């Protein structure tokens, strides 16, 4: 594990940590934000908007529970619309956090350390937003316990364990729980750092309680490292399974355009692609606003753009395979499905997504583009849109024009569809801003392990 972090600039690669950092400056830079007494004006401004959107979420959910799902545009034949699109979109975004914290840990990718903490926070908040949709999409959330959880209803009937929908409940709830646990375990030593640096008694006591009395003894660290490594090993197959199971919701059915074996890998790649876009959307302004450029360097930005490119290419391959399968299947319904996506009533959504996810992403081959932070930020927003449209295309075009022309219809979302979706941004952004303010946004102890001070020679 020689990070060679102070690699000379002549090697043309920005280091993972810019020169000039030691243990103390790393702790100081990261810990001063949660411990500060100030609430920066920009933060207050953003959280005001976020809280307004959170209010919109409450209003939309309240009206939904009062009126039922008639307030949505969802109706036959498009019986699955905004709620499932938004669910898949949010849960997909979460995947980047787990990829960064678990899979890249197993591959000893040291650049992940600066971004893993807030990518994991993003995962948790994204999964929370996603969870709202399956719970509320029936308009009767109190009944979700009967339909979702392994619990018999009043007539002794159990959920259908042969259905991917119930698999999804297990996959997503496990994913949410394990993400929270993994995140909290990662936080314990850093919360102890905050406890030890806290200037006020209240903060010292609060951070002391949540850090559980962590001392950093040799015993502590040994068990901690073992637990972290195994958690990473467990999270890796977990994260791959989550979007696989989400894709089963579609692939196990017989709807044209859904019933495809490519779905699991294609969904997982799309999830990571959209997740990295969201990490960039968050990291680029955050590193600027909080002056974290020396810890989240251009190397991180560049690597994230590369991951986005790689997964974007897999997604593009998925699109071409969908078209190929439609032709090769010789099924008139599959062929029509593809024709309808390209030239039917929702053709605009298909071509927008192709121009973003297949065409635009090719610009990431250029180093100049990957080094242009402003451009990358805009591109990451487009990718978020593109991946939302992908789910829209899959869900809506397949249902609106399925087998029998007499049942075809046009789906239009209502204002409440949009308000509920916008409201989840309020939940996400509020949670994320509170996280930035009160929790160390970068893993302090992990970043320190990259510094020469942490190096210990083997026994001679």
């Amino acid at each position: 594990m020689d990070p060679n972090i102070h690699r000379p600039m002549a090697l043309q690669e920005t280091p993972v940590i810019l020169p000039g950092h030691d243990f103390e400056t790393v702790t100081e830079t990261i810990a001063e934000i949660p411990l500060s007494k100030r609430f920066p004006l920009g933060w207050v401004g953003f959280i005001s908007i976020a809280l307004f959107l959170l209010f919109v979420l409450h209003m939309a959910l309240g009206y939904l529970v009062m009126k039922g799902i008639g307030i949505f545009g969802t109706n036959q034949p498009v019986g699955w619309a905004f709620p499932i699109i938004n669910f898949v979109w949010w849960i997909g975004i979460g995947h980047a956090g787990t990829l960064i914290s678990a899979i890249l840990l197993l591959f000893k990718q040291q650049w992940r350390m600066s971004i893993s903490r807030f990518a994991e926070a993003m995962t948790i908040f994204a999964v929370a937003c996603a969870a709202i949709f399956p719970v509320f999409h029936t308009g009767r959330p109190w009944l979700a316990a009967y339909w979702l959880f392994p619990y018999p209803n009043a007539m002794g009937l159990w959920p259908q364990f042969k259905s991917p929908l119930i698999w999804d409940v297990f996959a997503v709830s496990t994913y949410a729980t394990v993400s929270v646990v993994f995140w909290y375990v990662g936080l314990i030593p850093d919360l102890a750092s905050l406890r030890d640096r806290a200037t006020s008694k209240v903060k010292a006591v609060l951070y002391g309680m949540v850090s559980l009395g962590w001392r950093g003894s040799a015993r502590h660290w040994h068990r901690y490292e073992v637990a972290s490594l195994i958690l990473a090993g467990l999270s890796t197959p977990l994260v791959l399974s989550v979007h696989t199971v989400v894709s089963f919701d579609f692939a196990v059915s017989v709807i044209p355009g859904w019933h495809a074996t490519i779905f699991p890998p294609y969904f997982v790649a799309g999830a990571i692609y959209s997740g990295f876009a969201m990490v960039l959307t968050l990291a680029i302004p955050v590193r600027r606003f909080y002056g974290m450029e020396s810890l989240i360097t251009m190397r991180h930005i560049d690597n994230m753009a590369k991951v986005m490119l790689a997964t974007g290419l897999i997604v593009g391959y998925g699109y071409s395979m969908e078209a190929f399968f439609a032709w090769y299947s010789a099924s008139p319904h599959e062929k029509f499905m593809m024709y309808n996506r390209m030239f039917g009533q929702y053709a605009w959504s298909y071509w927008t997504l192709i121009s973003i996810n297949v065409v635009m992403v090719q610009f990431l081959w250029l180093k100049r583009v990957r080094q242009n932070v402003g451009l990358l930020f805009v591109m990451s927003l487009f990718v978020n849109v593109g991946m939302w449209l992908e789910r829209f295309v899959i869900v809506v075009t397949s249902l609106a024009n399925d087998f029998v022309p007499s049942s075809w219809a046009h789906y239009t979302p209502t204002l409440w569809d949009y308000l509920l979706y916008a409201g989840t941004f309020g939940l996400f952004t509020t949670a994320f801003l509170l996280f930035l303010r009160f929790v160390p946004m970068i893993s302090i102890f992990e970043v320190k392990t990259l510094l020469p001070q942490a190096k210990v020679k083997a026994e001679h």
Partner: protein
Amino acid sequence: MAQTPGPQMAQTAQSSHPLHGVMAEYDTGQALVDAARKTMASGFTKVEAYSPVPIEDLNTIIHKTRTVLPSLILAGGLAGMATGFALQYWASVIEYPMNIGGRPLASWTTFIVPSYELTILFAALTAAIGMIVLNGLPQPYHPVFNVERFSMASSDKFFLVIEARDPKFGSAAAFLRETGAKGVYDVEE
């Protein structure tokens, strides 16, 4: 919090509290590891090291044993798998058998996903809770926190403690001063 004397001024006799041990402070992980090696080689047995970053060597040098956590996690995972499978088998075959398209009631292949998810869930919870409980946490009070300098243990300083219950404790403070420590402090109970 009890105050302790400043660096280089360890006092052993006049303290009003019983001693938990003596603590030495180092600037680098390397100095701590070297000191820990020397301490163990000199026959001290009740020793603990504290560092702001994980140093795997320290556990090997001082405690020599590895944690049982991996076995617990394996057991947790297997228990999760058994729970998941048993839940589905019981609900689908025993409690409410239902013929759907003539498929077998115990169609184990469809039970894989929830069983798998519960394997991961139980194993992950065992990993996290096991790590916390085996580490004796939550433990809000510990004598080492009485040393004012110890607040740097989560920032950039490294510490070695020889506990008072060590049979050779009498010579501990003097010994630690010889290990290149930046300071040696009493740790009160």
